[in-house]
């Protein structure tokens, strides 16, 4: 083995043989000294001289030992162990500081790691499949289409046959099906997939099995696999569900398996997996509804796959000119990048807030360490004077900071799980990856990183300060004034920055809360209490002809009308909280559309006559729809905004005619306006245009409809009645999403609620930490100025004067911090503004003023104790003892 390597190895093991090596060198040196003394004696020296000469020749025993130590093991490591031991002793000497620092840091690290885990789970595409980077999704593209879309089945088959890049491919399509035979009929989301999906993703089911290749054939016994969510909600998590039979679209299927919670490979949640049976006659090349996924062959890169598929697509474009001309292919990693921009902003704001809390905590701990350093001045100065290098001292102090940080991190991780439970409980039900958010290795690594960065952040300044040249002169009786001034400036800076960050956080929170309040209390244009809603989808097989639809709906509404406790009921294509709007351009008779302008558009709603009464939307002019309209000429009702916007200069909107679409089109008929109603809007204010046009449901029956029911009491009490009523009208008709309007409202603004709640919590933390920081700084200032205060008092200053003096300083700093915080908040408003602020501007006075008051009060409270101490200073004592 070459010498340097051997040397290192021996040194490494020398770490563990410290004691034996230490005793060895001592014995050797002792022997050496004895021999040398003997030799000196023989030469005639006196015993004393012999000893001194021997020591001299050895160059000092301790130095010799020290040099020995340098060689025998890895010095750095030994030093580090020594630092740690010493550090622990030092921290235990003043446990108050240590405990406070650890707690403060833990409070800050807890939410930091929690939010990181959430962000990681939600945003960073954490896919539970082996080698997830080898998975790709394939879409079709076309120059005229803005976004990629699905692939057609024949195209998929060609890709599968001709590609050279994938070891496996699979394809699926989205569907909605009726699930019956287990509890209430329900309309659920399904994915029809080829059995190769499970080979591509390589994930085992939770229970049962996945689809077999022979189940791809239509003749096979119909199988179905449940999603984790559906398994929990509809089958109560019973593992015995495997083997049971359910009906999917009225065809019996056997449940063969249940997938784990994180088996997600597509944007939207799904409830069922079904085998994909494609009838070639029904899947022409133009029907682009299929979504392939594939796993790359080992050694093939995604770029190679792209090139490969592109050439196949080009070949298809040549061979199938009528269907594939201009159709390209788009290959990308199978990642879920469907996060709405709003969710991203939410995550970012929360993450920023949580980082603020951490920064405030670090400033706090730095303050504590600086204050503590005063007490260790002498110790450090002495060590420096006997030859300790500054770097060694720095290492020692930084080791202590690291010990604090590590302890804080460990305690913080305990708090993290509490935070995570809280966040997941608050989260909206469709937040992606909800079930898989947890503390894992990566979160722990992140915590370790924060710990190290924090320890440097809060430790470096006190360490540098304590070992600087000025500190070394502490052994001399220094003049307090100069030595303390720089430290004071630093502490003041800490106070100001803590106050600024706390202020920013408070301002953000204030704006969020106000925004949230506005949403809850604003009037949406209809009466939303005591309103029940549900969705129905009538299958075409039964309700093809419009007359059938009208008959069914009429039957249901009549039955509802006869129910006790139900005032009125109506059916509609979509209601304001629905989220599904179609905006249509329309034309007004007599107002020809001038090309080049934006054509008038409005949201289209199709409603039964009792709709306005049920929703309590005010009728401003004319009349609502009536039963007789069904057989008459087309009628429409418009909203107030629509009139104001597009018919302002026409005297009477009632009686005018409008047409959906182009005025010249012969297909659509002119429709007479028979009434004007108040506007409705959904509470997020953004999605539904104010201009609304209502058509009569009887004239345009829809198979995809919502029911709204006005009840006497709590609407959910009537849910069961509604369910059975539908069953009595048609036993096989599923009804879904029976909820009260209040519930729907709650869900639609759930994002706001979460942000408000979480930010409130964080603000409280930040406020507490900042208050503690203010308390520390002012406390320290008071103790440093004790002598000065005593002198002032001796010269006649009253307690009130002292109080004012201390408070004045503190309040000035607080004020500066507040101003900085306000400036910071204003500057960063830009990226919050768009979505999150409803009904409040970014300069909302109340939020800013409120935050200022809260912070100022907390600050003053924090200063009370030190101020009181200052006022109680005994002049004689302080001057004498200083």
């Amino acid at each position, binding site marked *: 083995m070459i010498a340097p390597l051997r040397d290192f190895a021996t040194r490494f093991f020398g770490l563990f043989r410290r004691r034996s090596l230490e005793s060895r060198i001592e014995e*050797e040196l002792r022997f*050496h000294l004895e021999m040398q003394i003997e*030799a000196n004696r023989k030469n005639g020296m006196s015993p004393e001289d012999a000893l001194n000469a021997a020591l001299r020749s050895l160059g000092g025993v301790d130095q010799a030992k020290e040099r020995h130590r340098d*060689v025998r093991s890895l010095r750095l490591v030994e030093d580090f162990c020594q630092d740690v031991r010493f550090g622990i002793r030092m921290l235990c000497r003043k446990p108050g500081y240590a405990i406070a620092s650890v707690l403060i840091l833990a409070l800050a690290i807890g939410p930091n790691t929690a939010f990181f885990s959430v962000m990681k789970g939600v945003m960073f595409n954490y896919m539970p499949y082996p080698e997830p980077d080898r998975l790709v999704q394939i879409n079709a593209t076309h120059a005229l289409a803005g976004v990629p879309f699905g692939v057609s089945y024949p195209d998929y088959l060609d890709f599968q046959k001709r590609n050279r890049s994938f070891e496996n491919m699979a394809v699926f399509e989205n569907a909605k099906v009726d699930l019956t035979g287990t509890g209430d009929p329900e309309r659920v989301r399904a994915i029809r997939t080829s059995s190769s999906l499970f080979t591509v993703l390589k994930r085992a089911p939770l229970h049962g099995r996945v689809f077999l290749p022979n189940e791809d054939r239509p003749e096979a016994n119909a199988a179905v696999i449940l999603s984790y969510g559906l398994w929990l909600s509809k089958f109560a998590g019973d593992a015995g569900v495997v083997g049971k039979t359910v009906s999917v679209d009225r065809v019996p299927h056997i449940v063969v398996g249940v997938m784990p919670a994180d088996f997600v490979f597509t944007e939207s949640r799904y409830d069922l997996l079904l085998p994909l049976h494609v009838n070639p006659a029904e899947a022409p090349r133009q029907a682009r509804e299929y979504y392939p996924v594939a796993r790359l062959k080992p050694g093939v890169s995604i770029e190679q796959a792209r090139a490969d598929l592109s050439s196949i697509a080009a070949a298809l474009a040549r061979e199938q000119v009528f269907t594939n001309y201009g159709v390209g292919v788009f290959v990308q990693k199978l990642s879920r990048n469907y996060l709405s921009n709003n969710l991203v902003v939410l995550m970012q704001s929360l993450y920023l807030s949580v980082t603020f809390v951490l920064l405030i905590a670090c400033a706090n701990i730095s303050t504590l360490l600086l204050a503590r350093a005063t007490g260790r001045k002498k110790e450090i100065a002495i060590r420096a004077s006997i030859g300790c290098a500054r770097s060694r001292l720095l290492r020692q102090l930084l080791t202590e900071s690291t010990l604090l940080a590590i302890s804080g991190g460990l305690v913080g991780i305990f708090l993290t799980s509490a935070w995570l439970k809280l966040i997941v409980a608050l989260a909206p039900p469709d937040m992606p990856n909800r079930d898989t958010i947890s503390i894992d290795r990566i979160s722990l690594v992140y915590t370790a990183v924060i710990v190290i960065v924090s320890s440097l952040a809060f430790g470096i300044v006190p360490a540098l300060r304590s070992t600087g040249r000025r500190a070394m002169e502490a052994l001399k009786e220094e003049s307090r004034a100069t030595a303390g001034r720089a430290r004071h400036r630093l502490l003041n800076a800490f106070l100001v920055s803590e106050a600024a960050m706390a202020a920013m956080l408070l301002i953000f929170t204030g704006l969020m809360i106000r925004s949230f309040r506005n949403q809850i209390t604003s009037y949406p244009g209809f009466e939303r209490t005591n309103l029940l809603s549900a969705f129905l989808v009538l299958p075409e097989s039964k309700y093809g002809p419009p007359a059938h639809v009208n008959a069914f709906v009429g039957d249901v509404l009549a039955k509802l009308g006869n129910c006790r406790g139900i005032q009125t009921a109506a059916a509609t294509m979509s209601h304001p909280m629905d989220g599904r709007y179609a905006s249509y351009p329309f034309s007004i008779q007599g107002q020809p559309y001038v090309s080049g302008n934006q054509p008038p558009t409005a949201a289209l709603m199709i409603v039964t006559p009792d709709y306005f009464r049920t929703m309590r939307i005010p009728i401003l002019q004319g009349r609502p729809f009536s039963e007789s309209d069904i057989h008459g000429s087309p009628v429409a009702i418009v909203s107030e905004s629509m009139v104001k916007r597009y018919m302002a200069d026409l005297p009477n909107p009632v009686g005018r005619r409008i047409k959906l679409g182009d005025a010249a089109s012969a297909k659509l008929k002119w429709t007479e306006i028979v009434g004007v109603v108040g506007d409705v809007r959904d509470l997020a204010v953004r999605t539904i245009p104010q201009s609304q046009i209502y058509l009569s449901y009887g004239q345009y029956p829809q198979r995809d409809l919502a029911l709204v029911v006005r009840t006497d009491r709590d609407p959910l009490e009537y849910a069961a009645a509604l369910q059975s009523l539908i069953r009595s009208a048609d036993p096989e008709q599923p009804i879904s999403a029976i909820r009260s309007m209040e519930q729907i409202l709650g869900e639609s603004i759930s994002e706001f609620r979460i942000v408000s709640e979480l930010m409130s919590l964080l603000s409280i933390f930040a406020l507490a930490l900042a208050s503690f920081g203010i308390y520390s700084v002012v406390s320290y200032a008071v103790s440093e100025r004790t002598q000065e205060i005593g002198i002032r008092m001796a010269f006649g200053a009253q307690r009130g004067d002292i109080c004012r003096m201390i408070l004045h300083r503190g309040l000035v700093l607080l004020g500066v911090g507040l101003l900085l915080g306000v400036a910071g908040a204003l500057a960063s408003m830009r990226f919050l503004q768009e979505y999150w602020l409803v009904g409040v501007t970014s300069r909302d006075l109340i939020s800013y003023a409120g935050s200022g008051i809260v912070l100022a009060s907390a600050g003053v409270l924090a200063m009370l104790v030190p101020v009181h101490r200052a006022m109680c200073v005994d002049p004689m004592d302080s001057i004498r003892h200083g």
Partner: protein
Amino acid sequence: MTTKSEVMHGTLDLLVLRTLDALGPQHGYAIAHRIGQVSRDVLRLNQGTLYPAMLRLENAGWIRSKWGTTENNRKARYYSITGSGRKRLQREVQDWAQMADIIKRVLEGAF
């Protein structure tokens, strides 16, 4: 560029190895004494540097050590040279000889 300590190390290493090679196993004091003798006290080195140097040589595997007893029945640590130590000594001696030769030629020879 060799630093001063490297040169010192190198010289000391050479001396220790040579001593052990010539005299066989010795304890630390004897080595120090011998080096002082041989160099006629010109190299009156700080004896405290000897022990770290010998530990370094031991770490590198060129000498080995173990406890033994002196003639006076005292306990002392005896060092002896190893095979690889001998090889190293040989090479070092060669290097030194070469260097001395070069210097000699530079100082005396034609330019």
